[in-house]
């Protein structure tokens, strides 16, 4: 009988030792991995993507540097007055008319051109719809640009005034329609009059609030070309810029 109880004690001691050491070693191994960050499967957890503003392919260093200069000098970055006039802009952008337009060409899918009647600055229904749609499509962009122009029909001063009024029409409509308290920090107004970076036929393919008849023609007379350019420039380009500036 004594042997039986001794055997019982031995078996129980072995059991308790096995249970104890097994439990302890499992927990200690997990604790070690917890402390050191080692993985049982040897895989490192990838760092998560952090939410950020958009930065798309067209955000070249050149575009960003021009935009930064424009935004700084025209009042959006660092506060101050809103808007840039044509002669100021030429100094601020520090690039030629053609290069300025070329920078914006990559925005063709994102931007729209609002066309105005001669000597007018009222937005038609198509323009309002386009503007609402464009403004609502901010996505990860930080700045909304309005680049208003005028055709060469009138005097330089009058054209400057028309383009300024067109830019303001866009601003006032957005203010009234969306009442966004942050609008001031997002919207940059440029009015170029007839003096800087006139649009050419390449802009016919952009999203327009109404068709330009001459744009549809494959072959145009010189007069039709002039007419088309005038129509395209009685306008305001509107676009969000998907660049981190």
């Amino acid at each position, binding site marked *: 009988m004594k042997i039986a109880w001794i055997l019982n004690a031995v*078996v129980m001691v072995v059991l308790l030792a096995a249970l104890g050491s097994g439990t302890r070693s499992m927990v200690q191994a997990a604790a070690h991995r917890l402390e050191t960050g080692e993985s*049982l499967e040897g895989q490192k*957890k990838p760092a*998560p993507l952090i939410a950020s503003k958009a930065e798309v392919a067209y955000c070249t260093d050149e575009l960003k540097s021009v935009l930064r200069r424009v935004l700084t000098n025209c009042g959006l970055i660092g506060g101050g007055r809103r808007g840039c006039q044509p002669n100021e802009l030429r100094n601020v952008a520090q690039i030629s008319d053609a290069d300025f337009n070329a920078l914006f060409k990559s925005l063709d899918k994102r931007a729209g051109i609002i066309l105005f009647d001669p000597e007018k600055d009222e937005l038609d229904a198509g323009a309002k719809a386009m503007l609402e749609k464009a403004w609502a499509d*901010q*996505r990860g962009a930080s700045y909304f640009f309005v680049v208003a122009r005028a055709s060469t029909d009138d005097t330089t001063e009058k054209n400057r005034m028309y383009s300024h009024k067109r830019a303001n029409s866009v601003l006032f409509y957005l203010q009234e329609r969306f009442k*966004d308290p942050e609008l001031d920090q997002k919207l940059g107004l440029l009015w170029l009059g007839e003096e800087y970076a006139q649009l050419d036929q390449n802009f016919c393919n952009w999203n327009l609030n109404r068709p330009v008849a001459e744009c549809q023609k494959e072959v145009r007379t010189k007069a039709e070309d002039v007419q088309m350019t005038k129509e395209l420039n009685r306008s305001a380009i509107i676009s969000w810029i998907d660049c981190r500036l």
Partner: protein
Amino acid sequence: MSKKTYLFFTIALIGAALGLFYSGFSTSDFVAHLDRQLHPVSCSLLPGLTETTMLDQGAEGCKVAMFSPYSSFWRDRYWGGVPWSLFAMGLFGFALAVSVWGLASRKGHHLAPNIGLLLAALVAVAASLVFFSISVRHLHEFCKTCVGTYIASGILVLGAALVFVSSIGDRRRASEAGEKTTGLANVIAILVVLVEMGLASVLPVALFVNTVPDYGKYISECGTLKSREDKNNVLLPLGKAGAASGAESILVVDPLCPACAAFHKRIQEAPFASKMSFKLAILPLDVECNWMMTDSMHPGACVLAKAMICARDKAGEILEFSYANQKEFRPKDKADNPSARIREAVLKAWPQVKDCLDSPDTKIALNKSLNWAVDQSLPVLTPQLYVNGQRLCDEDTDLGLDYAMSRLLGSK
């Protein structure tokens, strides 16, 4: 001890060994997760012999069982809690030791080991029945390793009962042959065996509790909101859940994210939910509205997000609806974009949101919600929970939820 009793002890030994084997694997899987990482689990009637991977669909039942609140207790005191399988290991280990001892000493027909073995087997069967009913009623999934434990319990109780019955004759014959045991000796022997059973069951738990590290320092290292101000009013109310006066709790969700649905359910069913005041931040992982994504993880989520914005005070209802219909809202193949299907289903259930759904204002509101995530520099993943501005770590959303929440809510 008769040959019959010897045979029945062997049956009990097989049951106990199997039980120890399965409960050992369950414990090992559970304890492996105490490093706050995700691991494959052994979910097979032959654990250890089949390869395990994280994506193994066959392991779903075991994962559900392990992550459920029924797999462990004292979850608010210890990270993950104390797994019930530790008790099972101790109990089956004790039954195995008694069987080995009975066979080796040939004294297995004595009353004390008989009672010890039968009691251990009955406890194992009772526990198996309880966990089986939990699987049927609450989890709706079966864990194969657990099923192995149930089978082992059945074999053990069969062996132990047969040993008990067979030993009656053995004892009578031994008594007739002159083997005498007093009543007091029997009582003492039974007490010794019961103490051994108690020790075997409790020791693993005691050592576990003693060895688990302090997780307190890890709970608060997953970041905070940059600002708790909601100046653009992007956070949506989450209806009935939580008390209005509770801790400010922001759930960052994608209506089509399965992990969000599971997490939402866990949070709402948890006892601490009554101490929380929930708000929703929508972060659809759908490229249609979320520029941060290169591919849609949950196509169609933008439609549901917009519907939630339109419903505003009933956003929680639309979220529940999305969670309930996630299977139907998944793309049927690579080319399928379920947005139109989802839109139709939403408008059928909430026709009042029709005009709002495509309005520029709704698009702007959704954009502001996404930009809230940008302003807060949130990780682009769901679900996330912020309690009083403090982020609940992803590692603590399953096993460590009760532990982490009790600390984030300041009750520990």
